[in-house]
C-alpha cells in the first residue's frame, strides 16, 4: 500500500510541476463554465443535468490528455527501469499512476464546479439528489476514461500516440451500441455491444438514479483497462 501511495504522490507532484495539468484544467473548466452558463440562461432550471451531460463529451477529449504522459514518458525517458527494478509490483505502478490521475481529475472537477452548485443553490431551489448522483456518475465516468487512457499510455513511448489511441478506444466504446443496432436486436452481439457502450451507463446518474449495473460497469472498465496495462508492462520485460 505504501508503494502505491509513493507512486501516486509522485505522479500528483509531477502533474503540478508541468503545464499540462494547468492547461487541461483551464480549458476544461472554461468550456464547462461556458456550457453551464449557456444552459442555465436558456433553461433557467436549477439543476446540473445539462452541464453533466456535456461534460461527458469533454471528458472524452480531456481524460486521455491527463493520462497520455503516465507510462509513455516513463518508457521514453528510461525511468521505467527505476520503477521496474524497485521492490514494487507492476500492478502497483499502474494503479498508483491511475490513482494520481483520478485525484487530479477529482480536484479539477470538484474544486471549481462546486461553485455552480452554490450558485444555483443561492438563485434557485435545486434538487440536490441528482446533483450528488451526477457527481458520482461523472467521477466514475472520468475514472473509466482515465483507466482506458492509462492502458493507451502503456502501449507506446510517444505521448501523442497514446493520446490518440486513448481517444480512439473511447470513441469505439462510445458508439458501441450503434454497432449493436446494426447487429440487429435481441441477439447476443447486440446485447454485448449495447452493454459495452459507455455513455448509456451514465445517463441514469444525471437523472438521480444510481444503479448497481452501472457502478459494476464502471469498475469493470477500470479493472480490465488497468489489468491490460499491467500485462503490457510485463510483456515489455520479455522483449
Amino acid at each position, binding site marked *: 500500500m505504501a508503494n502505491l501511495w509513493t507512486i501516486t504522490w509522485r505522479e500528483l507532484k509531477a502533474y503540478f510541476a508541468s503545464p499540462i495539468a494547468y492547461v487541461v484544467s483551464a480549458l476544461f473548466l472554461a468550456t464547462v463554465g461556458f456550457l453551464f452558463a449557456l444552459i442555465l440562461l436558456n433553461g433557467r432550471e436549477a439543476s446540473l443535468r445539462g452541464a453533466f451531460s456535456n461534460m461527458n463529451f469533454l471528458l472524452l477529449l480531456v481524460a486521455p490528455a491527463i493520462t497520455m504522459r503516465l507510462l509513455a514518458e516513463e518508457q521514453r525517458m*528510461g*525511468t521505467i*527501469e527505476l520503477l521496474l*527494478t*524497485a521492490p*514494487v509490483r507492476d500492478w502497483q505502478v499502474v494503479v498508483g499512476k491511475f490513482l494520481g490521475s483520478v485525484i487530479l481529475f477529482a480536484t479539477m472537477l470538484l474544486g471549481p464546479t462546486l461553485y455552480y452548485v452554490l450558485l444555483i443553490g443561492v438563485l434557485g431551489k435545486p434538487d440536490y439528489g441528482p446533483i450528488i448522483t451526477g457527481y458520482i456518475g461523472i467521477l466514475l465516468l472520468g475514472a473509466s476514461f482515465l483507466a482506458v487512457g492509462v492502458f493507451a499510455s502503456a502501449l507506446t513511448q510517444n505521448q501523442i500516440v497514446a493520446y490518440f489511441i486513448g481517444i480512439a478506444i473511447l470513441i469505439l466504446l462510445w458508439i458501441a451500441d450503434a454497432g449493436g443496432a446494426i447487429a440487429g436486436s435481441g441477439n447476443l452481439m447486440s446485447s454485448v455491444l449495447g452493454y459495452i457502450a459507455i455513455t448509456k451507463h451514465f445517463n441514469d446518474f444525471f437523472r438521480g438514479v444510481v444503479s448497481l449495473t452501472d457502478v459494476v460497469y464502471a469498475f469493470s472498465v477500470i479493472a480490465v483497462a488497468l489489468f491490460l496495462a499491467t500485462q503490457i508492462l510485463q510483456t515489455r520485460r520479455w522483449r
Partner: protein
Amino acid sequence: MENGNVMIQAQNLAKMYGNAHALRDVTFEVQKGEILGFLGPNGAGKTTTMRILTGFMPPSAGSARVAGFDVFADSIEVRKRIGYLPESVPLYYEMSVWDYLDFAARLRGVKNRDSAIERAMEMTNISERADQLIGKLSKGYKQRVGIAQAIVHNPEVLILDEPTIGLDPKQIIEIRHLIKSLAGDHTVILSTHILPEVSQTCSRILIINDGKIVAEDTPERLSARVRGAEHIHLQVAQAAPEIPTEIEKVQGVLGVTAHDGGVYEIETNLGADRRADIAALAVQRGWGVLEMRPVSISLEEVFLKLTTEEKSAGDGA
C-alpha cells in the same frame, strides 16, 4: 545459498531478442564484498546481464541468484537488496534532487529517509544541489544523482551500468574512490568499456564479447595470461641496421622489431629476464643505451586480443 560468501551467482544465463542471441551461456559468481568489472565492447551483453540480475527482464534460459534469492521467482526480495544505476540514468527532470532521492528511498522502503538521503548526497558530493531541479543539472551532476539513487537504501549489492560516463576526469576519480570505499560491505558489479576504469577499481574482471564470457581473472593475471612473451623496450643513441640481428643472437630472445629514433622492441621467452645480457651486449658494441625497460601489456591490448580472437574464431565456425 550453497556458500555463505557467494553474493551473486549466474548460471548458464542466456537471452534472446527475437532470433538474436544477446547472451549465451554466461556463468559467473561474485563473492561478498568484491568489485567485479564487466568489460566488453558496446552491445556485448553487459547491460542485458545487469538487467537480468536486477529483475528488469527474465533470462531466456539459465538462472541467477542474488543474496540467495532467485532473480525471477523471488524478484521482489532481490530488488530490495539491489541498488541499480541503469545505462540511461532514470531521472525525473521536473523533480528536485531531494524530492527525487526521497521518492527513490520511499520506493525501497527506507525507514530513516532524511538521514539516508543526506548520506547518499554526501557520498556522491551533491549536497549543495539538493533543491535544484534535476533537469537543470549538468551531465556530471545528473550521473551522480543517479548513483545517489542507487545507494540511498544502502543496498547489499550495487549494480552500476557505465557509472562514470559523462563525468569529467576529476569526478571520475571521485566516483572510483566512492565505489572502492563501498566494497567490503557491499558487493559491486560495474560495467564499462573504459579499460583503466576496471584495472583501477575492480578486484576481478569479466570480459564479455558477443554475449559470451571470454575471460575472467584479476587485472594483473589477465594481462600476464595474454602476454605469452616478455617485451623489452630499448633505446640506443647509435641506431644501426645490424642491431636487431645482433640482439637476436642473445639466448632467449625471440625477435626484435626496429622503430624510429633508435628504439627497438625485443621479445623474449616468458619468465626470462634477458635485460642484463642485452645491456652487456650494448655496452660491448658501444651503442649507447639511453633507456631500457620491461613493457607490460596494457589491458587495452588484452581486451583487443581477447575480443578479436573471439571474433575470428566465431567467423571460422
